[in-house]
């Protein structure tokens, strides 16, 4: 039986991993929920955010906490631009066409990143105060992981407040629930989608930057972690932020604990869980909340 310290470490690791997945997946959940468009390029935005932060810190020497918001805004701008141009075509194609087109877009992202940054795995340098561990009464916990959990929890709270308590959030929920009806009520669903899309890209970028330790940056990032993000979104229930949060945390914890207790088969535990789960509840945890 592993020590309390180890268990706590594992828990923090799993939770922070899950929160990163949530941050990245949250944008996808919302756009999927409103317009039912399948955007396989979503992980690409997380990648763009991560690499933007890398460029700002490594090439321009900016501290991480300054580079972070700039990287987020940059990614949101790119996302907005793409949404106004390429995604207009994507909206008009049928479901499988969307899958293919956004896949093509992902390939373009991968190729572009490779052109600029090369193909080796890279890391974003960690700011001094956040690296290292805390020692408290015999327990060792990574400072950075705690920071991650704290920030992500804060963001999740912010999202929840926006969703439940603001007018914007209410309109968004209406658009997710029934886009046609929302339009009929005078809600500008198109504009809402553009805003939500950009915000989603920003969240993904945040996840990409903060999570660069766990999900290292490389050109194939956009494709490598796509499965994970898709699993979070479908297990959580398409269009449900609450579902994505629960699913992401669950998958993060299951994966971390799985890899520790079953090192040989560690990678599967998460897949087997997802398959088993979807067999029982094919619509996910919370349908279109």
């Amino acid at each position: 039986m592993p020590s309390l310290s180890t268990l706590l470490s594992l828990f923090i690791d799993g939770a922070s991993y899950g929160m990163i997945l949530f941050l990245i997946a949250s944008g996808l959940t919302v756009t999927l929920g409103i317009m039912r468009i399948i955007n396989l390029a979503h992980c690409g935005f997380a990648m763009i955010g991560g690499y933007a932060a890398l460029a700002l810190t490594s090439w321009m020497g900016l501290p991480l906490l300054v580079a972070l918001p700039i990287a987020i805004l940059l990614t949101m701008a790119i996302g907005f631009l793409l949404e106004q141009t390429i995604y207009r075509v994507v909206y008009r194609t049928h479901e499988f066409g969307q899958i293919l087109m956004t896949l093509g877009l992902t390939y373009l992202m991968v190729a572009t990143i490779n052109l600029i940054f090369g193909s080796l795995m890279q890391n974003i340098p960690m700011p001094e105060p956040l690296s290292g561990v805390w020692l408290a009464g015999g327990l060792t916990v990574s400072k950075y992981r705690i920071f991650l959990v704290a920030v992500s929890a804060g963001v999740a709270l912010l999202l929840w407040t926006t969703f439940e308590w603001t007018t914007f959030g209410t309109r968004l929920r209406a658009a997710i629930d029934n886009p046609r009806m929302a339009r009929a009520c005078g809600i500008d669903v198109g504009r809402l989608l553009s805003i939500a899309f950009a915000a989603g890209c920003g969240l993904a970028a945040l996840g990409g930057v903060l999570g660069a330790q766990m999900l290292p940056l490389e050109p194939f990032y956009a494709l490598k972690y796509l499965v994970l993000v898709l699993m979070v979104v479908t297990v959580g229930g398409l269009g449900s932020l609450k579902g994505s949060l629960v699913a992401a945390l669950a998958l993060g914890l299951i994966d971390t604990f799985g890899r520790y207790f079953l090192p040989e088969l560690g990678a599967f535990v998460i897949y087997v869980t997802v398959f088993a789960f979807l067999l029982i509840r094919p619509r996910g945890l919370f349908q279109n909340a």
Partner: protein
Amino acid sequence: MRELRDPSALPEMRSALRTHRLGWFEVVMLAVFAAVYYLLPGYLPLATQVAIMIIFAISLDLALGYGGIETLGHAVFYGIGGYAAGFYALYVCQEPISGLLVAALVAGLFGVLSGIVVLRAKGLTLVMLTLACATMVHEFANSMRAITGGDDGLSGYRIDPVLGLFRFDLFGRTAYVYSVCVLIVVFLLARIVANSNFGLVARGIRSNSQRMQLLGVPVLNRLVLLYAVSGAFAGIAGALSAQVTKLVGLNTLAFTLSGNVLIVLILGGIGRLYGAVIGSIVFVVLSDRAAAIDPFNWLFILGGLIMLVVWLAPDGIVGRFSALTWQFRKQERRP
């Protein structure tokens, strides 16, 4: 009760039940294959790759073009077939044809097992499940590196001469003819499936699966069968590759391959079997030329190509072509 007449006397019915008919396309293809053998002996390895890709694409066309099964993980069958053939040659028997059959069986079986779970889902969930399934098997092969050779792959097995007569030579002549023959067999088998009652039902499921239920057809059962058949053919492609190159690597299970075969079909056009042929030729030749120059920048071309084709020619090259010939035929019909 009307007298039963020969269907050839019911021309409307023959064209009303649209089946795949052998025609000049097949003749041209055979001629092209023969021409490559005699005129371009230096390109035989590339041509062999084309033949293998065609088989793989045909398998996907059955699942996607006929049954409407949207999958981003079709490489899982290719890889399973490849490893099955590799293990078979390594530990059991080096005879190639039985190796293909074993691979088909193993891949088909996996199709049944995974299909039962995966095919209950629709839309994005289905896509995700196929992707997750392929990723899972890929991880499995990666972690079982003691057996599978991991990144280095499975190798070191011999393959006996085909039919006991034709040794695999250094120039790839035997490999080429062997692959083309397997392709012809697979093509004919795929035609049989497509033209059968089952083929029609598969198309019906793709068109309106809810209505199929209400015609009394157990849709999930039929989809699983289709998926298994498709998987078996993909397994044959993978096995062929393993036998011809004497190497099976993790790339046979990778997402890149699943993506590539999808692109092949989108390029060529789905649901017609011809699309698999055209798309494979264009794709394999293009990727060979481009990848030789720069593998990453090839992704630019690939990405741009997918987007353009989906946007401008969603029915692929074959679709565009048949749209044109349809215009011709319509004009001929008018008195």
